[in-house]
């Protein structure tokens, strides 16, 4: 609750040095993790598809990402004639920089002990510090803010390309970001509620009491599920990869990008996957928590942390291997009509339970009020859902009516025409008869 102990006793050059090391290590670690992720995704999905995957660059193809990166460097950097030059160049950097920023608040190690005041520290060069680059008191808000900014990268890229497919991609991106940001934030609030802090360090510390205290369980499974879905959408990972949808938008926002600029998007995307996995581990799975097996006490938490991250990385890949892509409207429906109400509702429920636990509210009243509130919500919700449909039905009815009138009119016209013809024919016959 006191922030990074590094800065507690004033700031000296040693602190700067430690900070510097942490930044560099975090940067390198993220970069390596990203490269690993790219390789891992290809290798893992290949396994799921009875294939081999990359196997030429380095042992088991592990240097594949590196090779790709080198290739990207030497490709021609193309810019469409219609593109907005400044924004077109800026967009990839927005994506990449924000991807780096989010990772800085993730504690990737440190032995957290339940109840200890200043837990989760390690000693580096004689300095006691957290194994995270920064631990701002508003950590979670920072995360949400940064991930919102990340959308700008995608959106601006699509808009500035001056091309139709990217434009559609960027429209999808903004809509998707707005829809899922809310659910994402809402699901985190449940965790914040329990931790009582926005600091990631504190949240991690709050889960130090064994698996039972992990928020995935203590907050109920629901916030985690919502967070997982929303995060997938936020990351534009399948089945929510509408923004780039190869089969529909030919790559979406990055259709027109090539060379290193494309590589930046590519990097940012995978970096975000790693970051988001790390945050999920932090928020719901106790961060670096895990048993220390032998020796090197500070080492094991980091191992556990990355092991947990790996599980999530695998999960994202598994999603991709299994699920078809949602349609735009279905994505919206899922976000607005399911995830947000659910997150809201669950927040109320969890908050109530918390209050009951703390004894502030009588459980009976809570249950009664809860049921009433839930009922009201349900009615409102149903009404909201069907309102649109009813409007549709009314339209349908009106159109059918119009169509019927139309048909009647037509028939009248036809009848008239037939009659006229009959009269004419009769006249003709008469004339022939008279001849």
């Amino acid at each position: 609750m006191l922030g990074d102990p590094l800065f507690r006793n004033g700031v000296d050059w040693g602190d700067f040095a430690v900070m510097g090391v942490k930044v560099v290590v975090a940067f390198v670690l993220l970069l390596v993790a990203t490269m690993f992720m790219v390789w891992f995704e290809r290798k893992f999905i290949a396994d799921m598809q009875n294939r081999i995957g990359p196997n030429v660059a380095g042992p088991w193809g592990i240097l594949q990402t590196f090779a790709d990166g080198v290739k990207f460097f030497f490709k021609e950097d193309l810019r469409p004639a219609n593109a907005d030059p400044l924004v077109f160049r800026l967009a990839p950097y927005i994506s990449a920089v924000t991807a780096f920023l989010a990772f800085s608040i993730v504690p990737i190690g440190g032995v957290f002990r339940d109840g200890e005041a200043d837990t989760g520290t390690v000693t580096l060069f004689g300095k006691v510090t957290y194994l995270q680059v920064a631990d701002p008191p508003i950590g979670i808000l920072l995360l949400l803010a940064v991930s919102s900014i990340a959308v700008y990268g995608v959106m601006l890229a699509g808009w500035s390309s001056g091309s139709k497919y990217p434009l559609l991609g960027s429209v999808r991106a903004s809509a998707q970001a707005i829809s899922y940001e809310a659910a994402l934030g809402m699901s985190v609030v449940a965790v914040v509620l329990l931790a009582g802090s926005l600091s990631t360090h504190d949240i991690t510390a709050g889960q130090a009491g064994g698996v039972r205290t992990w928020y995935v369980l203590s907050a109920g499974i629901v916030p985690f599920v919502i967070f997982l879905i929303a995060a997938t959408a936020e990351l534009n990972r399948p089945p929510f990869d509408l923004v780039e949808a190869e089969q529909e938008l030919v790559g979406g926002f990055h259709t027109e990008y090539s060379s290193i600029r494309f590589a930046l998007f590519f990097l940012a995307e995978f970096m975000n996957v790693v970051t988001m996995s790390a945050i999920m581990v932090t928020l719901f799975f106790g961060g670096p928590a895990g048993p220390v097996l032998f020796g090197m006490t500070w080492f094991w938490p980091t191992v556990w942390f990355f092991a947990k991250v790996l599980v999530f990385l695998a999960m994202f890949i598994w999603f991709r291997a299994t699920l078809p892509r949602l349609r735009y409207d279905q994505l919206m429906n899922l976000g607005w009509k399911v995830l947000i109400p659910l997150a809201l509702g669950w927040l109320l429920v969890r908050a109530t339970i918390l209050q009951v636990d703390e004894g502030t509210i009588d459980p009976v009243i809570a249950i009664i009020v809860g049921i009433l509130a839930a009922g009201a919500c349900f009615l409102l919700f149903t009404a909201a859902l069907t309102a649109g449909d009813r409007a549709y039905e009314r339209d349908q009815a009106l159109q059918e009516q119009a169509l019927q009138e139309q048909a009647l009119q037509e028939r009248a016209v036809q009848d008239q025409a037939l009659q006229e013809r009959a009269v004419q024919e009769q006249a003709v016959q008469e004339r022939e008869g008279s001849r």
Partner: protein
Amino acid sequence: MSIASRQVSARLAAGESILRMSEAEAEVVEGVIDPEDETMIMNMGPQHPSTHGVLRILLELNGENVLRSKPIIGYLHTGMEKTAESLTYVQGATNVTRMDYASPLFNELAFSLAVEELLGIEIPERATWIRMMMTELNRMASHLLFLASNGMDLGAVGMMLYGWKEREEILRFFETVTGLRMNHNYIRPGGVAADLPDGWEDGVARILVALPKRLEEFDTLMTGQPIWRDRTQGVGLITTPEAVALGATGPILRSTGAAWDLRRDQPYLAYDQVDFDVVVGTYGDTFDRYAIRLNEIRESMRIVEQCLEMMPTGDYRTQDPKVTPPPRARIDESMEALIHHFKIFTEGFHVPEGEAYAAVESPRGELGCYIVSDGSPKPLRMHIRAPSFVNLQTVPHMLTGGMIADAVAIISSVDPIMGEVDR
């Protein structure tokens, strides 16, 4: 507002789309659509991952919604029908097989049946059964390819590779029989090019044993997948009268509930001697078309099983020396054999004057071959009624009112092979 425009607007407003939209009507539609709504014209293809080659569709979009569309073809035009006029009937199969490259044997079959009708020759029983078995296997391969590409188009990358993998098993069997994975030149006028190789029963049996389990998996992965159903059910609707009016055949027509299958309704080969069901849908949507193809694989397997049991012995090519080259062993002994060998391979055999149309039920619908002969060894004119080409006409109708993602699903469900569309 003229009557025409009111008709059009009423039909549009009713969510009904228009089967064919003439330019005049299109103008009317433009009148109907609010000019304040900024619509966007977008070219989907000819270079697009989901247009199955080089189909180009002009989409008029309102946001993501498709207002109207117009398929444009011709990007893969290779003049194969014209080429056919300069190839002998002996060489002909090498040409037609390339049209619908996903189901080459059907092209060869339709061509051969038409030529045989002109020649008035009977095909040995074994040849007929070999043809039936091979084309049914080909139908399975083609449908597996559809499952793969359909999965891919809807974002299920896993499905793509699973489909391809199973198809590959069948293609490998083809390779042992014909020497080539695709474009086999195997079914020829007069029979088939070669007998089934030693051990063919095992090869077929292996496919028949392995595939059902896989189909179960696909069912789990796709059919039972709610996202999948959401994406396909109610998308790209078409009714029986519309499908008939547009000339659609095959899975598109059957998805509307019309049980029309040439194998059953105009039996060719020995389809009247095997047991199989015609799979039909109910709603005429993308899901039905998917499900029909999935289940047709099962029906094809039934037919192949019966072929395996009932495969007769005997010649695999007609023994008419004027059509079939002599046995290789004879050309060193018999003058007649040598002359016929020489003439059949250089000049080809002469086909009596006349015209013939032969149709088969290809995986995409009615594949017909129409040949006019002037008595020479080359067709005077050959026309292929390509199901992909005709089925493509249903696309604008099905697209209207959907979204871009639906467009991809619908095009995929039509399963057009552009090589066949453009010929």
